[in-house]
């Protein structure tokens, strides 16, 4: 990649921070640049939507106007409860995005904590953590998430996020552990140790910054996947509690052929929105990855 080569050179010359390198990469890549503008506007519009579409009004059922095609009063028509699809779409995007981001953040946090511990200490700690991870990796997570959703008594968005994130960190922990083990042998860590710096300080302030690019890359790439998982769970009937519209809720209506064929306005906008969000996240993710690679090469 020619861009990366440039980036390496420029970065070498200016020794920029990681974030500014990411920004540079995004500026250089027209797609990524477009993506970040688009994504930001989607997020801003979605999060501000309650200002124009009060939640009460958007979620109110009007049986006499269910499944109306798009018109001047309902830009994208109405859904199975006579609710405005456009309003639902904005509200849904907000919920889906919140869930995706929260799950990704939480999962990264768990993965980071466990991975750092194993990577930093190595030896017996690493052995124990690895054995536990080995076990966790064999859990069929989709199945167990479904069981959890059935069990949990007070079902809310928060619970849903917790359940999803509990099963999303195993791979991350592995990744961070293996990189941590490599870092551990580096001179700067050994030097700090001999200086008597406390372990937690070394972990947080010396090891972590060196893993940050890896973590950020991994996070952007899994964000899209987490948004997709929620859609699938909703289709199977184990998704969000009702009254919390999400993109998945709208798409899941498409399991009825009549809706797929004749009532496209219910599900197609949501499907397209997911596609756009995922594309944006991916393009941005690629740029972030290139920045991280460039940084790697600087060493």
């Amino acid at each position: 990649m020619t861009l990366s080569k440039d980036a390496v050179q420029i970065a070498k010359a200016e020794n920029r921070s990681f974030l500014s390198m990411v920004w540079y990469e995004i500026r250089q890549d027209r797609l990524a640049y477009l993506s970040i503008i688009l994504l930001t506007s989607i997020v801003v519009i979605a999060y501000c939507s309650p200002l124009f579409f009060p939640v009460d009004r958007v979620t109110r059922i009007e049986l006499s106007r269910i499944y109306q095609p798009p018109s001047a009063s309902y830009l994208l028509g109405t859904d199975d409860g006579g609710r405005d699809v456009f309003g639902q779409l904005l509200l849904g995007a907000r919920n889906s995005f919140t869930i995706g981001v929260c799950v990704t953040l939480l999962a990264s946090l768990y993965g980071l904590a466990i991975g750092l511990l194993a990577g930093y200490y190595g030896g017996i700690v690493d052995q124990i953590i690895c054995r536990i991870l080995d076990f966790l990796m064999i859990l069929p997570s989709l199945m167990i998430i479904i069981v959890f959703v059935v069990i949990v008594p007070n079902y809310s968005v928060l619970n849903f996020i917790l359940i999803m994130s509990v099963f999303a960190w195993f791979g991350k922990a592995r990744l961070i552990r293996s990189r941590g083990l490599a870092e551990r042998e580096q001179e700067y860590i050994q030097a700090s140790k001999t200086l008597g710096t406390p372990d937690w300080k070394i972990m947080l302030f010396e090891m972590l910054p060196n893993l940050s690019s890896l973590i950020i890359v991994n996070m952007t790439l899994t964000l899209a996947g987490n948004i997709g998982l929620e859609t699938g769970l909703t289709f199977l009937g184990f998704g969000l509690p009702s009254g919390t519209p999400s993109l998945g809720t709208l798409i899941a209506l498409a399991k009825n052929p009549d809706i797929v064929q004749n009532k496209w306005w219910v599900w197609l906008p949501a499907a397209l929105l997911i596609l756009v969000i995922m594309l944006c996240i991916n393009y941005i993710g690629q740029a972030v990855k290139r920045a991280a690679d460039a940084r790697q090469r600087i060493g």
Partner: protein
Amino acid sequence: MIPQLLLLSVLIFFLAKQMPGDAVTGAFMGKPNVSAEQMEKIRLQHGLNDPWIVQYGRWIGDAIRGDFGQSFVHKQPVTQLLAGRIENTIWLSLATLIVTYSLAIPLGLLAGRWTGSFADQVIVTYNYISFATPVFVFALLMLYVFGFVLDWFPSGGSVDIRMEEGTAEYVWDKLKHLVLPVLSGSLLLTYSTVQYLRNEIIETKMKDFVKTARAKGVPENVVYRRHILRHSMLPIAAFLGYELTGLIAGSVFIETIFSYPGLGRLFIDSIMARDFTVVTALVLISGAAVIVGTLLSDIILRIVDPRIRLG
């Protein structure tokens, strides 16, 4: 492997018992002419009132002897029930896997080698679209177009009932029934492989050993075949085992839409019906499949590249 499965069985047994209700409730619901005593008697007979740990003890004792208990809903031993379904799932998963790889690998190679070309852009776009399309919407569309509008393939089931078992026609018919479910699944599953392969090739292109080979004047085609390909295919081979495992649970959508009786649908139904013995057995099978898959990946890797040792 055995201790892991044991642990998994305890966990899933415990979780399953935490789900509200039991199979007896389901079976008797809406049968107002059965007395409360009779229901209670059946709960006792099946030991459903015992604490979960007692039930677990009983279950594991039998399981060691190969008896995974009785399905309450299907009224037959779990082993017998699963044996009936597992064949279909294996057909479906294997075919899906083969098609996925035979699509994804050429696409990934193509996109990786000629990065930025028109073909690459088409492939990348397809890839994003396939990643973002919900499988159930896609499967329904496939079914309409090829099953009904064009009428090329049967619309559901695993085999036509009029076929004589053991004949060539029977096998042919089975394959015909597989086409749509397999295509619907694999066309969307190529995402990760294509993406991975493409990235890997782009990265390998920059690696020193490739540059050296090129500098030595090795023809570009040979560089790709000998060096880049072999290097990039390694992780793909390693993923193979993992991919297998995801297919068991992942085929729920396909099974539902194509009325294809496999394990995925059975799992969802058993959860809904609180048919605990079946749920436990299915989770165990998935767990075992993951372990076997990991092992398989390990073995493949070692065959391909003896230097590498995983975990």
